[in-house]
């Protein structure tokens, strides 16, 4: 059974269009991340689902009920706000009980649910404290707890990790992953951090420029970006895009880039539109620093980024085209070095003039 279904949702503020004809279906118990830069409309979409904004057109269905005419409290959704939005004058216990009391849940039931949630989230000692007396991480967990006790059909998380420091963020990421296992509900998380989305989500919905760019499991988004935007937004560092000419006929597209390097891709040639001008998409792992024997191209090092498990090399090809390559972890390169690169055509992506992406078959 489908969990959430969006049908042709459209929203504008005044004359500014925010969302254009968004449709989406979530599976039961699915964890979906809305990923996009700020201003992309992803938060607005979340708020439409929550009922905090009204769509100008379109429908929102949750488990076979149309919920867009309902007020937020009756939709069966719970939300964890970016700044947690805990009621400062209420204790943790009262914060969690507030929504249940409004829903007229019996007292002992409220007690039970709070106790359960507190145990799961390990916030039992905090129950009688006020939000002002807690750390950011504790507040975060209380906010999750407040959503949890409502036993909603859908969890909405608005940038849940953005207010935490790096260490806490990793830990909370783990907790969110565990939460997903425990709850019998779908989860939507809004984030602008692609790593978060990749780690946690079953599927990622990449949103930009008023509309959904691509929907798919993390690796599919990574491996088969639907367009230039997705290709560059997902993955770190961003994919290098190099202008290229379609070189020769064959089953697979072979492209020639500015410094004369010819790259044989595994993208079926017949899928490409009839044009000679494309862009070649190369992730760093597709460009390796090699000995001169294996090299396909030459480049000059501009910056070396040592990440420990691998080394990223930012360089320029002969014609001045910037490119990002990967070297072994113990790379000894330094700025100004002349290096040999090997471009792995099998891992290359092709984008047409409109930005649409084409990928190797299979994999």
């Amino acid at each position: 059974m489908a969990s959430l279904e969006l049908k042709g949702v459209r929203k504008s503020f005044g004359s500014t269009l925010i969302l254009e004809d968004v449709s989406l279906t979530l599976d039961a118990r699915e964890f979906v991340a809305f990923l996009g830069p700020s201003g992309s409309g992803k938060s607005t979409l979340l708020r439409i689902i929550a009922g905090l904004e009204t769509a100008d057109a379109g429908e929102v269905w949750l488990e076979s009920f149309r919920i867009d005419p309902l007020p937020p409290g009756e939709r069966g959704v719970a939300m964890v706000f970016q700044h947690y939005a805990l009621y400062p004058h209420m204790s943790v216990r009262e914060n969690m009980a507030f929504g249940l009391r409004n829903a007229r849940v019996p007292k002992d039931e409220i007690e039970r649910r709070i106790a359960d949630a507190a145990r799961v989230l390990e916030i039992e000692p905090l129950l009688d404290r006020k939000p002002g007396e807690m750390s950011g991480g504790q507040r975060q967990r209380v906010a999750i707890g407040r959503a949890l006790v409502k036993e909603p059909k859908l969890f909405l998380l608005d940038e849940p990790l953005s207010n935490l420091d790096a260490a806490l963020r990793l830990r909370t990421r783990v907790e969110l992953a565990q939460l997903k296992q425990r709850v019998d509900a779908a989860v939507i998380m809004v984030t602008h951090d692609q790593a978060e989305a990749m780690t946690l989500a079953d599927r990622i919905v990449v949103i930009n420029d008023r509309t959904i760019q691509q929907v798919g499991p993390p690796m599919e988004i990574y491996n088969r970006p639907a367009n230039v935007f997705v290709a560059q937004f997902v993955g770190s560092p961003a994919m290098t895009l190099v202008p290229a000419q379609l070189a020769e006929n064959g089953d697979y597209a072979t492209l020639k880039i500015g410094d004369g390097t010819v790259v044989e891709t595994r993208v079926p040639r017949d899928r490409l539109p009839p044009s000679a001008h494309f862009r070649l998409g190369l992730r760093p792992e597709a460009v390796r620093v090699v000995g001169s024997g294996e090299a396909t191209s030459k480049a000059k090092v501009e910056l070396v980024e040592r990440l420990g498990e691998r080394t990223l090399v930012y360089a320029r090809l002969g014609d001045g085209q910037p490119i990002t390559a990967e070297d072994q972890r113990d790379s000894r390169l330094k700025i100004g070095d002349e290096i040999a690169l090997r471009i792995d055509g099998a891992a290359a992506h092709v984008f047409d003039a409109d930005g649409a992406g084409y990928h190797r078959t299979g994999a």
Partner: protein
Amino acid sequence: MAADFRRGRLTPLGWAALVIGAALMLAPLTWAVLLSLKDNAALVGHSEAALHGPYTLDNYVAIFGNSLTTRWLLNSTIVALGQTAGVLILASLAGYGFARLDFPFRRTLFVIVLIGLAVPSQAVILPQHELFAWLHLHNSYPGLILPGLIAPFGVFFMTTYMRGIPRELDEAAMLDGASRWTTFWKVILPLTVPAQSTLAVFTFLGAWNDYWWPLISATRSDMYTLTVGLAAAQMNYAQTSGLGYLMAQAVFASIPIFIVYIIFQKQIVRAMAGTAV
């Protein structure tokens, strides 16, 4: 109140000036207390007699013996409390409406309220008097309280304050299934306590010290507030029981508000800090 010593120490000259200033502040009050402790006859033509004994509490005894002063005190208290409660309620409701809800003509209505900030009382007091006569509200507590409830400043103040409360809280409450009223009552209102206390202090002191409206509305001595009652007493001074008694009345009438002031001094100062935002 943490970083207080940021401007260095006060020079001895500064302290001296402060002490003199404080003496100037206190001298009239002390003088009034001394006069109130003297026998009326001893003061006739010789008020300097107040500077030395013998002192007596007779004037205070007389106030309790037979006088409307206590009644006026009660009236002032009722009016001041009533106005304070009313302003808090009305201003909070309206502030929430203007800060958070969207309804037809909201901006226009808010501007109309802001215009009220500039209307001085005397521009409306004569027609108000006429109106209250028509409503048969003079010489009544509602008649004394109602005009004070028109506090555009209160509405403006609460609106500004509530706008400063994160909207996420309202949204969280909406998702928690709270009605507009529950959101207002259980979530937003408790967060405005600092603003409420500021507004309460202003309103209470304003109501307590209001003079013109009670002067023309409360025309029966059992409905006088302290301000009006004491005004009648001092303008009758030539024919009244005497200087000492008059001062005893004034001192007696000031004691409750001084007590309130001493108890709430910290809150008042803090409340003022809240206003200067």
